[in-house]
């Protein structure tokens, strides 16, 4: 039995999955001021009348780190940044005290200029004096050679709660994002650790002794201990949970669009040959661009409760929500009122809805039915327009080889799957707009909790093997090892798959659940004067996206 819990901004959803069946669900209001109690209440409901010894794992998608960042309840962070030659950066939003230091490592990972220890010592004393709690250290190209970050960390580790280093967040190259990511990691570390420890303690008191996993924004999980050291990976896992839930409800192998239409927003996801797209670099949070791997999702301000009004003689919907629909006691017209007025949605006050739509109908010189339909037509039209624009962007993603350019692989949706309150009502309208099959599941209300329950450990590595320097690195797995001159692409690919599998097991995966795959791989000849030809090999590998074994085998 697996328990999945998804803490959202408004609701907390729970689900118990047993042998591929959903045996229990729960939906409650989130108390943002007491997240711990909120989770605990749901967990108690889920654990009631089930055999606790049969629970094999708890998967939790939590907003602890996200809220800490958005609400700025974070540690005081001192940042040490080694930017070397290059762009002139403005990192003024990063940390409470920011220090640039000398030293430089180049793109090959060769240390060009050493750090100056006295410089670091002065900064350390300053940080202590200014009561910094956590430290972030980032050097340019540290993923290629983390020695400077490690050296500096050694000098600071005893004096602060947490020291976060840039190279451990991601193997992808993007120095400003690495700085942001490392800052956020240092900033939320204490908050998350406290939460995690409380949670473990409470479970123990309840007599539940099962492994706990935390959901990540890429739709995968990691075990709680890893999360304690890398809490930033837990941010914005909500959309990932709902995506995973959707994947569980539909199984697809084509290109398609997934929509989650809520009250305030609609979340849009894409599938390429049935597999989710990831953000090209990483997720954005609180105006920080990060390197945190995430499922590509775009949220637009358009939902059942969006504000409908005339503006410049045009019918406008959203992006703001002014309160509940008129049919449910609100004051402003919404698409939900149109659905109620048309008799497509039960509940609520139909007379009020008809009256409100009627007022609009008069201004538009339409019948009430026509006006209501027009609202829904515009709403679905806006969704289609947004999806089309996103597809143009996605299909224009940069390629770097002639082969890729000539293949011109594009996403061409063959279906749209939709969940959320108005899914069933909007499906036929969406079908007309998109001109592809639109499906909606009967039971979707706790899809995100189901998604959380079925997520499995994931990792991506960006490996580089340089036979001239004799070094192989896979920063995400913390691996820096030596290789010989004859190392080749095949060896690198095999090693990459091995590292992915090992890392997934470390994150708590079952052997049966791990499939690793190569996403990108290239081998470049490096010609060095007369000394010969070396290889610069680059391999990106990941755990194959998908749901845990129990579910798939159904």
């Amino acid at each position: 039995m697996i328990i999945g819990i998804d803490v959202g901004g408004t609701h907390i959803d729970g689900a118990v999955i047993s042998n591929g069946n959903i045996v229990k669900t729960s939906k409650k209001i989130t108390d943002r001021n007491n997240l711990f109690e909120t989770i605990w209440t749901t967990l108690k409901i889920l654990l009631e009348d089930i055999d606790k010894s049969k629970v094999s794992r708890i998967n939790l998608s939590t907003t602890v780190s996200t809220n800490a960042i958005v609400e700025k309840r974070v540690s005081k962070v001192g940042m040490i940044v080694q930017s070397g030659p290059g762009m002139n950066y403005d990192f003024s939003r990063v940390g409470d005290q920011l220090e640039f230091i000398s030293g430089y490592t180049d793109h090959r990972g060769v240390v060009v200029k050493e750090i100056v220890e006295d410089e670091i010592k002065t900064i350390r004393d300053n940080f202590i004096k200014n009561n910094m709690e956590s430290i972030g250290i980032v050097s340019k190209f540290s993923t290629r050679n983390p020695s400077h970050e490690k050296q500096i960390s050694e000098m600071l580790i005893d004096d602060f709660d947490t020291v976060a280093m840039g190279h451990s967040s991601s193997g992808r190259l993007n120095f400003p994002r690495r700085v942001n990511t490392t800052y956020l990691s240092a900033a939320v570390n204490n908050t998350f650790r406290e939460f995690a420890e409380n949670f473990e303690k409470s479970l123990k008191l309840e007599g539940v002794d099962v492994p706990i996993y935390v959901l990540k924004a890429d739709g995968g999980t990691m075990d709680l201990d890893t999360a304690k050291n890398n809490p930033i990976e837990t941010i914005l896992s909500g959309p990932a949970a709902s995506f995973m839930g959707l994947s569980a409800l539909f199984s697809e192998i084509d290109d398609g669009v997934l929509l989650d239409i809520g009250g305030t927003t609609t979340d849009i996801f894409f599938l390429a040959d049935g597999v989710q797209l990831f953000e090209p670099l990483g997720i954005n949070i609180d105006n920080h661009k990060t390197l945190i791997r995430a499922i590509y999702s775009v949220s637009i301000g358009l939902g059942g409760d969006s504000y409908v009004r005339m503006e410049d003689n045009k019918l406008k919907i959203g992006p703001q929500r002014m309160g509940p629909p008129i049919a449910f006691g609100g004051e402003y017209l919404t698409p939900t009122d149109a659905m109620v007025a048309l008799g497509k949605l039960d509940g609520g006050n139909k007379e009020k809805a008809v009256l409100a739509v009627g007022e609009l109908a008069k201004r538009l010189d339409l019948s009430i039915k026509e006006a209501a339909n027009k609202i829904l037509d515009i709403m679905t039209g806006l969704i289609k327009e947004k999806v089309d624009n996103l597809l143009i962007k996605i299909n224009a993603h940069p390629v770097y080889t002639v082969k890729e350019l000539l293949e011109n692989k594009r996403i061409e949706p063959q279906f749209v799957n939709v969940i959320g309150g108005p899914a069933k009502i909007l499906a036929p309208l969406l079908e007309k707009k998109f001109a592809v099959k639109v499906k909606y599941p009967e039971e979707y209300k706790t899809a995100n909790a189901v998604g959380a329950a079925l997520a499995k450990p994931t990792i991506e590595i960006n490996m580089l093997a340089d036979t001239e320097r004799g070094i192989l690195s896979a920063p995400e797995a913390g691996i820096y090892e030596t290789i010989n001159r004859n190392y080749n692409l095949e060896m690198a690919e095999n090693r990459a798959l091995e590292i992915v599998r090992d890392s997934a097991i470390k994150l708590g995966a079952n052997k049966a659940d791990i499939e690793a795959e190569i996403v990108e791989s290239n081998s470049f000849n490096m010609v060095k004067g007369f000394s010969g030809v070396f290889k610069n090999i680059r391999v990106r590998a990941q755990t194959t996206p998908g749901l845990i074994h129990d579910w798939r085998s159904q």
Partner: protein
Amino acid sequence: MFKAKNRLGLVFFPAFDWAISKTHPEREERLLYTQDQIFEEGIQDTEGIEFYNPVIASEKDVSRVHIVVPNVASQLSQSHLVAAGGAIRAYKAVMEKEVNKSFALVRPPGHHTHRVVYGGRGFCTVNVGAVALERIRQDYGDLKVAIVDTDAHHGDGTQDIYWNDKDTLFISLHQDGRSLYPGTGSIEEFGGPSAYGYNINIPLPPGTGEEGFLYILDNVVIPILNDFKPDIIINSAGQDNHYSDPLTNMNFTAQGYAILNERLNPDMAVLEGGYSIEGALPYINLGIILAMAGLDYSHVFEPDYDADKLKQDTAITNHIEKLSEAVYSLWRHKKELAEEKFKNKKEVTRERKIYFDTAGITEHQVQKFIICDDCSGLSVIDSSNDESAHILAITVPRKSCQYCIDKAYAMYDSSNQYPYTNVYLQDRCNDNYLSK
């Protein structure tokens, strides 16, 4: 993050699956470290910098510029069409006002490709920049263009293509041809009868550094551009003038390239050569990108940069000052010089030997410019090579008079195959390209 002052379009296409050969300087690895640097600096997140994929240039795009023997399909691979298409995409982004400026970081380069193509020479098989320029002229109308070639090698191919075109001012800054491939590029090479003075060569002595390049820029290039008043300035941005380049002997720097770009203020740039792929290209390309975008490049230095070591020799400085005067004086007197040189001539002929090093082919070419009072006149090329090709190629330039157009078609129609293996008509006026 940063916001670019100028919206900049980048076509970054390293062609990671293409090489002339596995160990050739023009190999898959060439832009690998440039990519690393661009990615690591976070250029993708800079507001105002947009990335575009190349389009694929068509045969017609190539035929607008080149006479490819026997035909485009037999000589050009998809990789060449993608490189040219990369420049087309970048130039179009500016013409369509999607961005203010653009830079095509594509490979292989193109500036050694002449009008007639028998194969590869100087790592080039298609003149990427010229193909893109003629495409935008075709799509967006007449344009007065200045091309400034900052590659260490003389841009002999671009010179050949625009030799008789007064609307395309070509200025090449390069290491003196007496000490470097392809050997041409003296100041006497000054343009054809209808465009004398619009082909300007500035051969620089080996060892020229920041000081010399910027002196030439400020004292020759920019004054000439101010006189010429182009609609568009293009930088043929070769990067082998760098002090660490293995193929050349110059002393230019990443800072220097960035400053040059800021002052030149080109609308478009296209990558040419540059083979110090680890020590120079990442920094020069970053410098050019930042300069074009109007961002701070003052921290862009090579890790081993040492201003003292790179200080320019006084003898070089003196030579460059004299050279500047000579070139600018020629430019100012181009009209008189042309009158004297071409007085009472009905046609002008030049005869050349051109070696295609990649293909190992030697061409013997006789080019005849037929002088016309109403337009810039036809070009007729009679060319043979040591592999038994013998071609006749008639070119009708842009804005030709009807008389010349009719004459070209009559010439094409009446040319029998014999003794030619192929006969070509390149009609730029009607965008019509024939061969038999």
